[in-house]
């Protein structure tokens, strides 16, 4: 099939097998994209990319679902101001993921912050107050579950919480909110 998508801001058009996982396509296009098939797919969480602003495991996305999508790998994400907020938070707190999971965790935090933004803009979940509390994206449980998709245990969840909080403060300051 012919796959048309935007990868790191560049329009790409290529012919690939319709069921080819996106991580394999990205590996072939970019040398910097993580090469890790040791996990046998969906096991390590190192191939996370932003697809239309939402963090996704690229190994779970077949080519035919990526058609028309805007894909941002770490190579593209690191040039954005959103990434600078996170890197500033790393520097400020002195907490930094290891080199193995750095790219993936940074994108994951970027995806979380995008979600926080959406939640502020519109109440994400309507309904039962207790259910709403369980679902709160600011809770530690939520953060633990979201970050748990990457199996690397180099950084404690409380440390990640500090980074997320600080990065979000920077983001809000920058956008004047």
């Amino acid at each position: 099939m012919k796959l048309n998508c935007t990868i790191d801001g560049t329009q790409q058009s290529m012919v690939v097998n319709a069921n080819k996982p996106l991580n394999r396509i990205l590996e072939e296009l970019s040398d910097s994209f993580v090469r890790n098939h040791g996990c046998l797919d969906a096991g390590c969480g190192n191939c996370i990319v932003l697809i239309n602003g939402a963090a996704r495991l690229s190994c779970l996305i077949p080519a035919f679902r990526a058609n028309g999508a805007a894909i941002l790998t770490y190579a593209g994400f690191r040039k954005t101001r959103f990434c600078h907020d996170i890197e500033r938070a790393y520097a400020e707190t002195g907490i930094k993921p290891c080199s193995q999971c750095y790219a993936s965790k940074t994108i994951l935090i970027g995806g979380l912050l995008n979600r926080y933004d959406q939640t502020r803009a519109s109440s994400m979940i309507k309904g039962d107050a207790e259910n709403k509390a369980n679902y709160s994206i600011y809770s530690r449980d939520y953060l633990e579950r979201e970050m748990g998709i990457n199996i690397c245990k180099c950084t404690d969840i409380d440390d990640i919480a500090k980074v997320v909080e600080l990065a979000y403060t920077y983001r809000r300051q920058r956008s004047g909110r």
Partner: protein
Amino acid sequence: MADNIKAPSIHIPKSLADLLTEKGKDPSLRIFAGGSYIMARPFFYTDGSGDDIISITQIPELTKVSQTDRYLEAGACVTIEQLLNSGSYLMGKETFRAITSIASSMVRSQATIGGALCTPDTRFFLSCVLSTIGAQVEIRLLSKRGLKGHKITSSQMWLPVNKLYNSEGVFLYENKAILTKVRIPAKTNNIQVFRTLGNPMREMDSTVFFGFEYTPVPNGISHPNLCLAFPKNGFFQNLDFSNQLSSLSFPPDSQQIEDMAKLLEKKLEESCPSATPIQRERSRRLFVSILYQISQGIV
């Protein structure tokens, strides 16, 4: 490596009728909903099987959510995240929490309800949760008619979730039917308890999904419904055992709890022989601890 990989064709039906016709004509078509299960199979891409794919996410009937005062009805292609968003008014807090705990939002927004229920050999937490609360599913059974079998007809039926699986947890309707809707009952005064022990993605042979629902009555419980799921090894929901539980007077003493635990062990051995010893032991201990918690009014 790429030499042996066959490129599959992708079929994208726009209506349920198209889907039934295409699947009826070619049962080997692989149904692709969210893709979180299929894509995560080891060597999904490199094994070279290249079965043709039928993507069902653009069928309006399968992506619709509607609700009444009594239940929520969701199409099979509704993602778990959408279910949580639309069902938060209707679901009990324990059910809501259990469904939230299935995976991170990244996976929940990709995994669909139908996909989670119809995986051929692996049972996930959602099947245990929905089965415990008495959810029902609509399936369309496919059959070929006419002299040459060219005409595809389908018949519709509603089933409780537990009827989709045999005692070994194998999905009974693979390539015979298509799951189209799920009906989730609204919250009642029943009390629900859900637990997961183990990591379902990495330790399938030791993970236990536990679901228990009951109606509290003075000196006892009524309508108890216990459901146990073992990812690769079984699915347990036994009417006899539930009846025995309802005859138990509360608070039970430790001897009664031990007797019930032994009965559960026996029933598990009979109906889920493929469950591993650690899964049976974990189930027994979970059951005992929940009974103690109920008798002390903790849950």
